[in-house]
């Protein structure tokens, strides 16, 4: 498959807030047309700042962003008309009806009235029954659907979802994931931020990891999950070992804690983990152990190791 031209192209983007806090440090990022891209990172990593700059809510300190080839600063009308944003906070009008607020969004983004389209958007989000209800009478989950409906009302080609499932119940989360897939299938590019790795795993085609204002990794989801799928088995030995016997050379083994522990790294997603064979080989080599424990590398560990590798 030939490489597609990026629909969002972020170059050398930095942001230092008036307080002196540097939220983004020279970020470069390309989003491919039609993909679901998950921006993964802990709280305060710069996810929302990055999205806010692309959508026009925050002025960058340096750098440029192009949306579908249009500079977001110099050609903001064309750029912004292609973008829909669902922010993290639940911010809606209170006294407007659902249908009126969604129609308002369509007009605001420069599109002529289209009641049939509004009806379709509301139906897709299970909001049609609530179309004439004042927003303040809706539950939190319903309000979030309204915000998504507002973002979709002008038929954007690019949709930003900032922490779409924060504080959302399981049912709505499933609905939302289905909706995101339907949108992707209809050609919409979706960028979502999350600090839940499961969400990235469930949804994304590619994952970008952001930490302390830097994009430290951009990878196909399958590749990242393979890394995240690594597990370690630690064996606490009865007798410390000075060196590994040659018979165990085939295994990914390391000695730790002055030879008192033996650490085996394996891939949970692989067809065979090799644990059975390893234990058998240990027995044959006469190595005995008192206890064993396993640990999975968490997102946190990945961050730590990625950041450490860069220093």
């Amino acid at each position: 498959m030939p490489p597609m031209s990026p629909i969002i192209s972020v170059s050398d983007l930095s942001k230092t807030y008036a307080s002196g806090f540097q939220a983004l440090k020279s970020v470069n990022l390309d989003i491919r047309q039609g993909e679901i891209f998950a921006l993964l990172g802990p709280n305060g990593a710069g996810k929302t700042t990055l999205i806010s700059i692309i959508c026009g809510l925050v002025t960058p300190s340096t750098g440029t962003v192009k949306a579908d080839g249009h500079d977001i600063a110099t050609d903001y009308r064309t750029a912004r008309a292609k973008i829909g944003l669902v922010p993290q906070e639940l911010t809606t009008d209170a006294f407007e009806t659902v249908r009126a607020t969604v129609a308002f969004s369509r007009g605001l983004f420069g599109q002529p009235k289209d009641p049939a389209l509004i009806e379709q958007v509301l139906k897709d989000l299970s909001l049609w029954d609530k179309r004439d209800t004042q927003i303040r009478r809706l539950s939190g989950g319903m309000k979030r659907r309204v915000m998504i409906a507002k973002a979709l009302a002008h038929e954007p080609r690019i949709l930003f979802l900032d922490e779409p499932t924060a504080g959302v119940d399981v049912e709505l989360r499933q609905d939302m994931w289905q909706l995101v897939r339907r949108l992707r299938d209809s050609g919409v590019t979706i960028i979502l931020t999350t600090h839940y790795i499961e969400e990235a795993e469930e949804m994304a085609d590619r994952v970008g990891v952001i930490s302390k204002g830097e994009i430290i990794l951009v990878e196909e989801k399958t590749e990242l999950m393979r890394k995240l799928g690594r597990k370690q088995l630690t064996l606490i030995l009865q007798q410390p070992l000075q060196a590994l016997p040659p018979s165990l050379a085939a295994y990914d083994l390391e000695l730790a804690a002055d030879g008192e522990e033996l650490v085996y790294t394996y891939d949970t997603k692989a067809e065979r983990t090799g644990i059975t064979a390893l234990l058998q080989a240990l027995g044959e080599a006469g190595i005995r152990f008192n206890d064993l424990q396993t640990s999975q590398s968490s997102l946190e560990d990945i961050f730590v190791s990625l950041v450490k590798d860069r220093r």
Partner: protein
Amino acid sequence: MSMTGINWHAIGAIYRFEMARTLRTPLQSVVSPVLSTSLYFVVFGAAIGSRMQEIDGVAYGAFIVPGLIMLTLLTQSIANASFAIYFPKFTGTIYEILSAPVAWWEVVLGYVGAAATKSVIIGLIILLTATFFVPLRIEHPLWMLLFLVLTAATFSLFGFIIGIWADGFEKLQVIPLLVVTPLAFLGGSFYSIEMLPSPWQAIALFNPVVYLISGFRWSFFGIADVGVGVSLGMTLVFLAICIAVTGWIFRTGYRLKN
């Protein structure tokens, strides 16, 4: 987006949204200002007006009508427009305006246009109400409408600026209450500047509201404290200042963007 490159749909969407907000609360937005102003006509026009001297050949009850309409126009324009932009800032829904493909003046046109429309409607209702209580004549109806619309637009824009500047409900109120209302009361709503002792006549000319009321009253009775050209000029200067400040706000993102 239209062929002209102007986002008319956005201007219309904001305008309709704001007008709908007004129509949801007719008592507060229309009936209340009309009633409170009309009470002056009842008291000064019908009740004690007959015992007061005419001013420049105009019955006192009628003399105060233009000033009172201006007073309401100023306070209503500021209140409408400042609240209209302050509230989305307060709730956070401003994100949508900031992320939309709109130019700053399109946003202003939507908000300020709606606030000014509402003020003009209220002004006209008050004018109609006044005719029931006092004998009224309008010598220059087109000038009257011009001053009505220009003042409503200028002070709606001024209110819009206050709404962006305010970072709390108190700040939202402080300028209308502590600056605009005193200036309007002292700007000749109830008297002619000529009736003041001489040093105060000169001081009064520093009050911008004097020019608005004088010009507006001239359009009714053909009498004025300052020339009508000066009144129009001052109104346009204030409008230009407000436009410049609003443009600066959006260019720099003052109180809107980080």
